[in-house]
């Protein structure tokens, strides 16, 4: 039997405002426990929340960027449950009146384009963190993160494969980064993703029983967990067994999803409108201001890269996937004015070296890469030497100019200097010279190789070819 996969994703994006959503405390990551707290985020008796307008502004940006409907009057609600990282005993969130509804993003999986619906986005506060003592049955509560603003982004169940899910997630991530409203760090938890996944026989209209996947803290994990879950559910269904509706945790060490049993009671969150916060009203002016200030988005930038730089769609798509990569490209390209070369270098040498790391951590700055390529184009160094220079740049972070100078790697383009070496090579290899003259022209490569050896690769290859042809045919 053939099955169709149905996936919906829930993203929690921490909004990078300077202060928390309902108080003035800093949102900075990594401070000593419980130092970024005040009566409001500690949930002390008598304290009251005051909405940080920046959070609304950031949410509006995301709403506009995804072509969503903005609910001009929206409301916070309380989601009631007990947990030690939740000092008020409820999370202030949005329920039946979220700020954003009915949006969409475009994805592209192996050339196939698709629109994925966004059901809703709402603002809410993050909870604190529990730190469990490994030796004793003891847990510590750190409330620094309590009240950090989150935007929850819920997709429609429009995703039909783990690849599509991954593409959607990357697109949401890219838009958030382009808007500069979330730092997108999955390891630090500022961009988190849960998934709902079910299978149904192809052609079937009603949805199958779904499971909820949690604890996937990288793009790779999201795809791997979904792929695993597709196989697991398919095997169950093929054997005539039922999928149990439950929450599963992805275990990246075993590569399996594990049941969260025991922790997952059927929650009744007893949502009701938060009486401490008045409804959020969004004026025409406010919305217009947000709309006007919106930066270029990934899709627009991709199109510009194609039109302005003549890049193939494939290159443009990869380069605009992340704002940092695209910024890097533009900064490098402006130095050497060779877009396709920059693209090639970035997509091969650079991305290989990064091994999935952030381009911002790369020691080679874009201006330096551009400079390097400009040197090749200007004939200062050969393409081959450029690769060695690049390796040194990666290791040391030094500028290409400095490396070329210090290592004496300038291309030898001085004809008289090269001619002397060419003549001495011919003199040293009379047999091969004779064969060449008798028509074995393939030997040219051999001679050039000798030259490169003697000049440590610095000889201008065009000039070398010309000189050998000239001297051997004498």
């Amino acid at each position, binding site marked *: 039997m053939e099955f169709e996969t149905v996936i919906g994703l829930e993203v929690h994006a921490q909004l990078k405002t300077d202060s928390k959503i309902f108080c003035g405390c800093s949102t900075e990551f990594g401070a000593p426990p419980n130092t970024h707290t005040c009566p409001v985020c500690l949930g002390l008796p*008598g304290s009251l929340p005051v*909405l940080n307008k920046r959070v609304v502004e950031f949410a509006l940006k995301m709403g506009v960027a995804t072509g969503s409907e903005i609910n001009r009057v929206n409301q916070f609600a309380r989601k009631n449950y007990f947990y030690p990282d939740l000092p008020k*005993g409820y999370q202030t969130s949005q329920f039946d009146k979220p700020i954003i509804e009915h949006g969409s993003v475009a994805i592209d999986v192996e050339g196939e384009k698709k629109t994925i619906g966004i059901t809703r986005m709402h603002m809410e506060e993050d909870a604190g963190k529990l730190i469990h003592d490994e030796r004793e049955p003891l847990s510590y509560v750190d409330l620094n993160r309590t009240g950090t603003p989150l935007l929850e982004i819920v997709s429609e169940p429009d995703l039909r494969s783990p690849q599509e899910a991954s593409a959607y997630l990357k697109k949401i991530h890219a838009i958030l980064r382009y808007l500069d409203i979330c730092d997108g760090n999955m390891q630090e938890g500022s961009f988190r993703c849960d998934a709902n996944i079910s299978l149904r026989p192809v052609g079937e209209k009603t949805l199958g029983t779904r499971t909820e996947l949690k604890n996937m803290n990288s793009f790779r994990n999201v795809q791997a967990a979904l792929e695993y879950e597709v196989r697991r559910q398919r095997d169950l269904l093929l054997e005539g067994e039922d999928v149990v509706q439950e929450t599963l945790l992805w275990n990246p060490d075993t590569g399996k999803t594990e049941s969260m049993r025991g922790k997952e009671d059927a929650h009744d969150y007893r949502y009701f409108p938060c009486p*401490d*916060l*008045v409804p959020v009203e969004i004026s025409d002016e406010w919305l217009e201001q947000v709309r006007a200030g919106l930066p270029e988005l990934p899709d627009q930038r991709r199109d510009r890269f194609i039109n302005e730089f003549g890049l193939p769609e494939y290159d443009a798509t990869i380069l605009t996937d992340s704002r940092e990569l695209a910024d890097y490209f533009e900064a490098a390209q402006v130095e050497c004015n060779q877009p396709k070369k920059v693209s090639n270098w970035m997509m091969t040498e650079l991305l290989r070296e990064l091994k999935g790391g952030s381009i911002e951590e790369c020691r080679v700055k874009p201006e330096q890469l551009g400079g390097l390529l400009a040197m090749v184009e200007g004939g200062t160094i050969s393409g081959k030497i450029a690769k060695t220079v690049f390796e040194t740049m990666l290791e040391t972070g030094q500028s290409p100019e400095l490396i070329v100078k210090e290592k004496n790697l300038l291309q030898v383009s001085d004809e008289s200097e090269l001619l002397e070496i060419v003549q001495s090579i011919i003199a040293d290899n009379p047999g091969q010279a004779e064969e060449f003259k008798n028509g074995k022209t393939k030997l040219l490569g051999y001679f050039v190789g000798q030259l490169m050896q003697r000049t440590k690769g610095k000889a201008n290859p065009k000039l070398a070819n010309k000189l050998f042809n000239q001297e051997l045919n004498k």
Partner: protein
Amino acid sequence: MKPYELTISQALEALETRDLSAMELTKSCLERIEQTEEAVGAFVTLDPEGAIAAAEEADRLRAQNNTVGKLCGIPLSLKDLLCTKGVKTTCGSNILADFVPPYDATVVEKIKLENGIVVGKAAMDEFAMGSTSETCATGSPRNPWNTRYIAGGSSGGSAASVAAGQVLGSLGSDTGGSIRQPASLCGIVGMKPTYGRVSRYGLVAFASSLDQIGPLTRDVRDSALLMNVISGYDVRDSTSVDTPTEDYTQNLTGDVKGLRVGVPLEYFSGGLDPEVEAVVRNSIGLLESQGAEVVEVSLPHIDYCVAAYYLIAPAEASSNLARYDGVTYGYRKEADSLLEMYRKSRSEGFGAEVKRRILIGTYALSSGYYDAYYKKASQVRTLILNDFNEAWKSCDVLVSPVTPTPAWKIGKISDDPLSMYLSDILTLSTNLAGIPGISVPGGFSGDGLPIGVQIQGPHFEEGRLLKTAFSIEQALALKPSLPLIGKEAQ
């Protein structure tokens, strides 16, 4: 006349003319507390050292001829749910028995800014849930007019401390009548301002959409003086309203000519005590004789108030009180598991009435019941507001009783929650509609127990209420005299 017998305005005058020092006044109050507290039991926490230090400061400021605050040297009490920096704030509950806030409520800041003196924290029903102050974990305050009777609630300690002459004024909170009812039963003035008029920041929440802080004083002028201090927009409370405040004392003219006094039919039906009715009708007559126009009005949905209130208030409370879980502060009972710790801390920390309301509220918000209960109750709230808006077309204020009866004996209905809930019937609608209400002394019962008169008005018309109350006060000329308490009474 002893200093503690003065009203705030009288004391301010004596302080200004140097006939009295803040220290003399404060010491007089502290002595009065010493003599009467055993019988009245108005306080959970007393801070005599803090009060003496503040009095010293007040006198120093006056001596330096600095511009002094509007309450410079006036001893006050605060209901024990207003957060006071460094001074225990228990909410009358074991769960917060040792809670010391690291900050002052906005109203407390304002009192201190005006150089007022906080003498102590007044007893109250646990988390303001009650109408008799009998659910206070540290013992209930008693009515200074007869200490076998309740002082009312939930701001019972505030009312008792003012009525007994222990302090010159107090701040309480009113969620369904908790300022007006004890004020009425103790023979003082109690004002519940418009929702949003006074910042709730630092008021430990019972029902956030109904709670409002207000003054309890010995006369109407003092009520206006305290309103001048505590009113106003606060950036820390999103529900406080950004409208200009006024000098409320300017309303104290006694002139009610042309004022349309509405008499709501529904408030005079059912189990209204004849003595109470007589007192209220007398006050209405006094207003009429001074030129006010009396009209009968109807508030048809008033019958649903108790039902709506006892869904909305417990629902909000069930969420507001979830934070008392033993994790970060408050009472914790150690246990083997998290769930057990929650269960034991909350079971032992909360009293019966609080637990009852948490249960009701949790139920009302449960999925499947939300629409039938919480949502329906919210709709009733709109109907009640509409009733009032309809009434304002034919009258400027509504005059009615505050409670169906004068104070009752301690223990009489504390184990009968339903009849306690029903005793609130005349005050709940004010909170549900968010309008202001005031209770002003109207007379005494045959047993010598005070009976108050309630005046309600449109949103932000506190001035009009004070004007009407002042007129009744003037016409009655019941001099604010203090009851004889304990040994004095024998």
